[in-house]
């Protein structure tokens, strides 16, 4: 599936439309993950915790679009 991941971008765009305040860097990060290990195997809770930390940090570092637009 890593060679044909067109569904990843489509679904990320849709999810982003529903949640526009999520930072762009999070989208990129999740896209890369879904094109690689997240579609290949069930990740351990430790690995998921690390990803969660990274995403939380990425989402805080960038101002939410909704706020930035104000």
């Amino acid at each position, binding site marked *: *599936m890593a060679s044909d991941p067109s569904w990843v971008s489509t679904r990320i765009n849709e999810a982003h439309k529903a*949640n526009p305040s999520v930072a762009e860097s999070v989208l990129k990060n999740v896209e890369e993950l879904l094109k690689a290990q*997240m*579609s290949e195997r069930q990740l351990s809770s430790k690995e*998921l*915790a690390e990803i969660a930390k990274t*995403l*939380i940090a990425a989402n805080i570092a960038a101002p939410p679009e909704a706020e930035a637009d104000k």
Partner: protein
Amino acid sequence: MRIKSILLSWFRGAATPVSLEPNCMSMVVYGVNGSGKSSFVDAIEYVQKNGKIGHLAHEYSGKNQEKGIPNTHRPKCEKTEIRVTLKDGNELGIEIKSDGSSVRSGAGACEIDAWEYHRTVLRQDEVANFIHATKGGKYSALLPLLGLHPMEVAAENLRQLGKSIDQQAKLSDSKTTLRQIETKKKATFGTKSDVEILEIVEKLHSKYCQDKKETKAELSRCEQLEQQLNTRIAQLSTDGRRHIALQGAAHLSLKIQVDAVRAASVKLASVVEPLITEKLEILEFTNIFVNKLEDKETEVTCPACGRAIPANSFQMHVNAERKRLEETIKIFNDRRSAIGALSDTVKSLKSYLGKADVQPWRDQLVKESYSENFLHLDSLDGEALRTSCEEEHLKGIEDKLLPLIAKAAADSKDAPPDAKQLSIDKHTVEVAKEAINANDQVATVIRAESLISFIKSLEEGIRKEIRSQSKTIIAEISADIRVMWDILHPGKAIEDICLYVPKDADKAIDIRLKFYDVDQDSPRLTLSEGYRNGLGLCIFLAMAKREGDKDRPLFLDDVVVSFDRLHRGMVVGLIEKEFSKRQVVILTHDREWYTELRQLLDEKTWVFKTLLPYESPDIGIRWSHKTTTFADARGQLKDRPDSAGNDARKIMDVELSFIADRLQLKLPYMRAEKNDKRTAHDFLVCLIADGKSVYQKKFEKDYVIHSEAIEALEKADRLLLAWGNRASHSFDIVRPEATKLIDACEKALDSFKCLSCDKRVTFTEAAGSKWVQCQCGNMRWQYGKT
């Protein structure tokens, strides 16, 4: 990739090396029950399931099935071995050691490992498995075909990631803290807006911090204010400072927090107690589960609901259980947060009432019978409460600490005005500072929640994609099932068979159909066992068909046992029509069907072999050098010559009926079933009469009547009349007679086979459809009487 051969040594029924050799063609193998047909299928299953055979997965076969896999009589010096050779010459060799462990070698492993067992092998007892499986089981069986596994993995990872973000962002704790701050804010500022609160802070700043450098940062203002107020409080009299400490204690919302913990505990108990009872029962079965999980194909009984589920579905089942527990986990976290808040308040109370300025007040209260209250306060460990907070702790706090807070509130009422004002302002600033800080926390919570919502949307989107793609593929498979069903059951009133994804259900697939125009949600409602098996075969073949481009072999092991004669015949048509370009290996113990297959399937693409009846483990599986089934009859000569003779007669009845059909033999008209009950003698009479003028063999450049063949047919007819009937009806036949009868019958059938090309005279049509001939044309038969 097709199979060239499967060689077995001391594996299951095999002794010295025995090889199934389709030579990349399709193949029909006949053998009576126990002759060793399934040993070859077991070998394929062993190879594909990494050393496990489903029907050997029981308590007596040993951890590695070492008690069931090797031949029981294997000499110590011999090895148990499987060797599969593929079309490209690559080979997969597996040597199985005494403890059941194995060593694999050869380049063929790569190709064979890619085969999916459930799309390669269909056994007699598995035909209706798909129909009888749960919706989840059906989904699991179809999942590899749907090609959606990566999406399934992604969706599950996202679901777990959402929970992980919740935990890492400490959302539950943050929300509890924010709720508490909101409560304090309301109690202190009423319905005032954030702007109004900031104005109050600004006024207080102007009042107490005139000499301080002006700052616009709201938090800095609060901090400067706190500093100034503390300095002023420190300058107060002891009485004033005591009043302020007591007012601090009086402001603590200990009662609310005790009630919050109690409410959360009650809520938790109501869901947790029945759960614990249930989970204890589950624990008893856990070990069995863990052991059985090694074999992904084995069905295990779910200890929670009692359903039989394939081990590979267990993961999904567990996830569903975890989802069920989500609400409990949330309640648990809420209670933990409430206890955390109570713990902080108890620590604040200890801090306020532990101040040196409050000591005289405490001494006075000890004299007024509050000594136990202070003893309780001093002995209470606020931090320890976090890990253990039971009803007795709550009751202790209520009984002993609330009176102290009430007393502090009462005694601080009459504080000196300056101290009173300082206390009020200090409290105002503290709450304002928390409220300002909370704004940042709110933003953090909103960000974390939006991140979780994004991940959830993504998961839902992927699940939607899975459903959508599943529907497309399922529709294609359903169309194939319907085509195959129509071939098997033309004109029957069972229509619109289709697989479908049930509404509002993920990871589930079911089958529905129309039975005499009435919708049925399951084939199990109306279909007989035979029809269910027919449908099971169609489903297996429809799923296998989707891998058609890969030209992988199909093994059908005794799959028509419950089919009647008519439908067995239809299976041949189905395989010829839908799988003419695939390698199909059919194994059967049904002699009549084998004969039918041998007559109907094209010898150019099909190989026919028969196994000899099994004698003993040290002799093992043996091939007959004949393609007919007379070996069965000979196997009975020793003990039951009458049965041997009867078998020979039955073989002739069936074989000659097919030959007569292929030669378009003209027979006297017989009405209805009588036509189907003609005997070998009926056919032989016509074959002999016609053969004398239309059965020819090549002699030099011309054709002459095949007189040797006619003689063989005449001899067989004579012996069948003399001994065949006796064998069948009066059982009065001796071994030499039965032997002669079998030999004569076999010779008669062989007389239709060419000695040069080894093909029957019915092999192909020739000369404008008037003649049939063998492959090389040395023998020919002209249709009908000339």
